């Protein structure tokens, strides 16, 4: 398994500001993923973050709004920029682990409320 520490666990932010969410893994992983889970909804992949390269964003998500850093193989950040109430969601990071990288493990998520 993998131990994933995600910070902060929750935050309440003013609209127009930015929040950076951190994801720390207890061992090196190749790929890290960021998801958004809007209230009462399923998880939607925002982007895939590989170390040493630009993150790959899914349709509907752009780097200016959700810049991602991946400075090393154990750490990544997701920033939610210029927030609006529509950004209120749970944000989760996950990593692939296990034999042949066939299992995904998730952090506990960050509950973001924008007021």
């Amino acid at each position: 398994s993998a131990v994933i520490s995600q910070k902060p666990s929750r935050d309440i932010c003013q609209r127009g500001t930015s929040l950076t969410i951190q994801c720390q893994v207890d061992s090196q992983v190749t790929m890290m993923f960021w998801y958004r889970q809007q209230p009462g909804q399923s998880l939607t992949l925002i982007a895939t973050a590989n170390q040493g390269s630009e993150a790959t964003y899914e349709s509907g998500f752009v780097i200016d709004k959700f810049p991602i850093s991946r400075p090393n193989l154990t750490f990544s950040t997701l920033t939610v920029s210029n927030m609006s109430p529509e950004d209120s969601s749970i944000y989760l990071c996950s990593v692939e682990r296990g034999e042949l990288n066939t299992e995904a493990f998730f952090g506990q998520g960050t509950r973001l409320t924008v007021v």
Partner: protein
Amino acid sequence: AQTVTQSQPEMSVQEAETVTLSCTYDTSESDYYLFWYKQPPSRQMILVIRQEAYKQQNATENRFSVNFQKAAKSFSLKISDSQLGDAAMYFCAYGLNMRFGAGTRLTVKP
């Protein structure tokens, strides 16, 4: 693009009984992974079971088993001897970069 459909927004089961959660998916790939995740109110995503598409045998993990029908693109989860702690949202997911279904909220009645 792959899509995952869970047609049961809510399900209910009596404690100790069996319940089956449905999932269908769409893909043009021949080799892939399918997953069931459980999300309790703590919001931690917990892997319940995993199926590799090239394996014909259905995966089993204790009280949890799947009915994987590759030709029909169906991947249902059966929970036997349901326990109160099984109450949660259950998400079906396709692939390692995780396309999730909409989820099924399972309630377990004592």
